């Protein structure tokens, strides 16, 4: 195989990963099952790792390969393991019937966000050197926006957490194309930070489940100026 066909094959593979990554982001917006949400996140992380490997092969960058490897281990394996340790299985069995908006509306808004991301990143792609120009950038931005949207319309704690993680995936997806020479120690630190994030959030969600009896955090709306009048904030002091 000549060099140019090899590069073309890698480009095609990366384009495939990009397309599937965006599809996964849409699916996270739309899916109802908590478990399905988690599986989609794992798939999205695998695509992120795949894209890092492909770009690493294309530019012969060991560093990108390492980023791919770190993502391959931390997100699809360690994060679900931490979640399983901190949360009860009951949380995963949940189906979320009512999001804040219904799913077709949500998907339309998500589509608008993806198009917005494309137009937002056009000037960025115009400004960087050709070797940083890649479909990863608009799709990473779209992933970030769709993650933020997921966080906004969900009410169940674990899908909201996955929205946050999907945002970070999006940022990274753009990052592996834009800033691929970031020191490895920084990448490692960000990956381990993600693990701390999942652990702390998991502990918090478990506390919410124990004390309130539900993980529907979207329904916790007692702290507002107007409703503060109803319940005088009395501290529980023995």
């Amino acid at each position, binding site marked *: 195989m000549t060099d140019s066909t090899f590069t073309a094959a890698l480009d095609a593979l990366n384009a495939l990963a990009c397309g599937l990554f965006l599809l996964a982001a849409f699916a996270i917006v739309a899916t109802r099952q908590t478990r399905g949400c988690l599986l989609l996140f794992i798939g999205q992380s695998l695509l992120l790792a795949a894209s890092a490997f492909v770009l690493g092969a294309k530019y012969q960058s060991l560093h990108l390969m390492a980023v791919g490897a770190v993502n391959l281990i931390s997100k699809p394996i360690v994060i679900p393991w931490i979640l399983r340790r901190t949360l009860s299985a009951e949380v995963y069995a949940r189906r979320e019937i009512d999001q804040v908006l219904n799913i077709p509306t949500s998907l339309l808004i998500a589509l608008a966000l993806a198009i917005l991301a494309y137009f937002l990143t056009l000037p960025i792609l115009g400004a960087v050197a050709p070797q940083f120009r890649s479909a990863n950038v608009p799709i990473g931005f779209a992933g970030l926006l769709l993650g933020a949207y997921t966080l906004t319309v969900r009410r169940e704690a674990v899908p909201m957490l996955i929205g946050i993680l999907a945002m970070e995936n999006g940022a990274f997806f753009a990052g592996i194309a834009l*800033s691929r020479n970031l020191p490895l120690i920084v990448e490692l630190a960000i990956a381990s*930070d993600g693990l701390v994030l999942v652990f702390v959030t998991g502990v*918090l969600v478990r506390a919410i489940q124990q004390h309130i009896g539900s993980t529907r955090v979207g329904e916790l709306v007692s702290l507002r*100026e107007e409703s503060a009048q109803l319940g005088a904030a009395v*501290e529980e*002091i023995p």
Partner: protein
Amino acid sequence: MTLIALLLLPLIAAGLSALPRLRALSPAVTAASCAAVLILASETALRIVAGAPAVSFRGWLSVDGLGALIVWLVSLVGTTAAVYSWGYMRKTSSHQLTRLRLYYANYNLFVFAMLAIPMVVEPTLVWIFVELTTLTSALLVSFESTRAALEAAWKYVALSLMGAAIALLGFLVLFAALQAAGGEPYTWEGLARAAPRMPPVLLKTAFVLILAGLGTKVGLVPLHTWLPDAHSQAPSPVCALLSGIETTSVLYVILRLLPVLDASPFSGVRDGVVIFGLISVGVAAFLLLQVRDYKRLFAFSTVEHMGIILVAAGLASEAAHYGAMYQILSHTVTKSFCFFAAGAAVLTVTTRDIPAVRGLVRISPATAASLLLGGLAIAGAPPLSVFVSEFLILKAGLAEGRYVVVGLLTLFIAIAFFGVLLHINRMVFGRRADDSASSSTGSPAGAVAHAREGAGVLPLSCRLILLLGGALVVVLGVYLPSPLHELLRLASHGLQR
């Protein structure tokens, strides 16, 4: 080496506090480690004041004037809040002594993360420590495990982490901009040197993403909604840390980018920053008027002050930047004292509801006096330090000819002044309208009646910190020691090219 010690001390203290065997010692360990950090931080700051350009360690950690100011303030509030926690936490959570060691372990880790932000020079690592401040303080916010506290902690975590993810993309784009300029290391200084050669589009995108993302954590309007919840539901010493210094130490990261943007070819960023700041000040000033919880009152005042600092940093002159640094100092000292006073009020009257507290001066003169001093100081009454710093900022704005900005800022500050003192005045001196019929109103009246029996409940450590903090608030208003003045002056250079 000092910097390494500064970072290691809280980590060791966190490890010791988490040990089950040393449970009883964890408050003492925390206070001692924080005091040692304060001494080391003061020493570092004095070295900078004496003329050392920067204290650094192997190109990874470095502290200049601006960094030294933040490090010193973190260690100051860290120490006072640790001592305050000693009595306060024992009083409020005596039934769960086992959980207290988790409180202190988290507390030390939180202080560690805040100390690291101004020391680390690599922006993406700074981002990680910003994220760690959220993660280490989340369980402190939810510590009381009430429904409201858990709700506040969840909002805090969800919004802060959302902001952090946006900021992460900003930092990655910033790195791409640096690469496009070529040849400089990814540090704050390297960024400033490379800025003229960076593609403006990338730099602008990065700044907008970082401002929006970290602005969430600072509590800038419109993403401030979590702040009054988290800053009111956490235990009072944690509120002092959150409101007093955590917001400022994240704002520091935004401030670091201003000289980079100045060096780049496009203009108008500082104007954008001023407008963004003014919106926060204005919205917070009006929200202050309608609160019903006195800890939320102080939390909204934090949003207001962050806006003022941002406005001052966005102005062009050196005098305005000095004012911004002075405002950081006065805000930190005063706001932490306010939350100590609010904590004392919580201990005295066991409610945070403003209408339920009337005539505090007759129930507990000490609490009433500190609450009044805190309210006057944070609202900006002369001659206290917030007044001085706000005055400096307004004067600098006038000297620059920014009449509209100064006019609006004065208006908003006046509204906030009125708002804070309206509530505090009623709480301290107000007479119950229904003194005769109080039995029919239920819990609030009951709470105050309960407080009358248990007046003078303030633990020793709380009284000590109230006395010390109050003295600091008063003294800083009339007398600024010359090393501190020099530190503020050096720190303000961090905002200039």
